[in-house]
């Protein structure tokens, strides 16, 4: 699978990454070679094979809807890069 610079730019935008020209070029080459390797999976016919999402079977996990312990506002904000009046502060959105 050949990955173009355009593909890299599209995926970087989806992943919210900013890449410089050198990184784009490098990634196009590296992703192409990894995907070429992964294409090996196409040797297998998996038409009737169900997918596995988790190796160990676990049934739905339920619990009763009770209020437990949670972080205080102060503790929850302690690691915030920017905060104001008990809220996370972000650049203007609208």
């Amino acid at each position, binding site marked *: 699978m050949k*990955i173009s610079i355009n*593909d*890299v730019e*599209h*995926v*970087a935008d*989806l*992943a*919210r*990454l*900013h*890449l410089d020209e050198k*990184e784009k070029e490098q*990634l196009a080459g*590296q*992703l192409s*070679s*990894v*995907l070429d*390797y*992964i294409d*090996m*999976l*196409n040797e*297998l016919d*998996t038409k009737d*094979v*169900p*997918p*596995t*999402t*988790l*190796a*160990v079977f*676990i049934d739905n*996990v339920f*619990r009763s809807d009770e209020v437990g312990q949670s*972080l205080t506002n102060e*503790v*929850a904000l*302690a*690691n*915030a*890069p*920017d905060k104001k009046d008990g809220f*996370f502060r*972000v*650049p*203007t*959105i609208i």
Partner: protein
Amino acid sequence: MKLNELTAHRLHEMLINREVSARDITEAVFNRIDEVEDELKAYVRTTKDLAYQQAEEVDQKIQRGENIPPLAGIPIALKDNICTKGVHTTCSSKMLENFIPPYDATVVEKIKENSAVIVGKTNMDEFAMGSSTETSAFYPTKNPWDITRVPGGSSGGSAAAVAADETIVALGSDTGGSIRQPAAFCGVVGLKPTYGVVSRYGVVAYASSFDQVGTITKDVTDCALLLNVIAGHDSNDTTSVKREKVDYTKALIDNVKGLKIGVPKEYFAEGLDPEVEKAVLESVEVLKSMGAQCEEVSLPHLKYALPTYCIIAMAEASANMARYDGIRYGYRTPEASDLIELYKKTRSEGFGNEVKRRIMLGTYALSTGHYDAYYLKAQKVRTLIKQDFEEIFKKVDVLLAPVTPDVAFRLGEKVDDPLTMYLTDSLTVPANIAGLPAISIPCGFKEGMPIGLQILAKHFAEATLLQVAYTFERNTDFHRRKPNYKGQEGGKN
């Protein structure tokens, strides 16, 4: 032997016989850290004050004549992706360089309940993405057996710290071999339990359907003791499994008579170093001579394990890494005019190259038009690989295999070539794909570097696995050899 060179079970005896204090042990460990850490760089951060405080509490308990649990007063190092309340947890990333968790991971709570002494947080590949600890944003860790070589990864700091006697035991995490591979490279014992046996709550996620916390120790007995502490259901982790409590030390039986061992030929395929192959096959002979029955078996889909792992791990990684946006915690770019720019600059400046690469690959595999061809396809092949193991474990109790295709490689040797680096995990990822327990124990040397023997068992059969590992250890001497590393000033080994 110095105290820091001993095992946890030996030190426990000495503690309860009042031959030593927890303080003495802690001191021996920190002396060793002072001696070698400048060069080895196994730790991101040490927690000396906390350690002495915990040691003091244990000594007081002993003085009061209280019973202490087996790991009380025993120094432990924690991989830096395991959250410790009030102590930086960085994942060796610029993104989390200043992150101080407001809570303890469940495994840390259990460690504290058992009064183990937390020595520090160990270096790792950034967000556990790597096989050499070279993708750490801070510095690479060196292998105490040969400082020009990598300790393996991503739990390279934990493995190097145990091997160099900078701690007694350590915790790591294993997503595609990140405990077993560094354990093999550093000549120590590394166990990845069955998926769901140990809680992942508070362990920073990389690939959630593979991640599992496990142990790195100097011998199999310590492995069982530490597993006893960390295993168990946790309602904070919906993928943790409800099972009856097991005492894994009961599995430490020096006997494998009648046990059925499978040697899967696909693990011995092209690319395996002949000396590694020889050491593993000789290990099979050792167990055979102890009365185990051995047969060659086949896992036809094994060669597809690595590409399957790459797609699923990177897809899950790209989803897990989405949370690092510079808003609630972690790094934030100093300047951005709008929110999208803030996300993009934060993530581009905060993540290293390997993390970006995996996010890109994973995002690509999950994106419109590629989902079926890559992600769904890989999940289907995952089923085939899992079925191969299920079939084989109807016939045999354990599988024996190499852990890595070769011994530890040199620093810088593979770091610029992602695919070559990924290939070093080809023999460890199958256990993660199928969720199986697997252990690495020392089984030989090549050019003075340790070789690991991998033992795999079916889901929840940690006891069988420990029994085989223990029997092997009791009848061989590989685990007794030490790297003999003296630190920078003591001369190069």
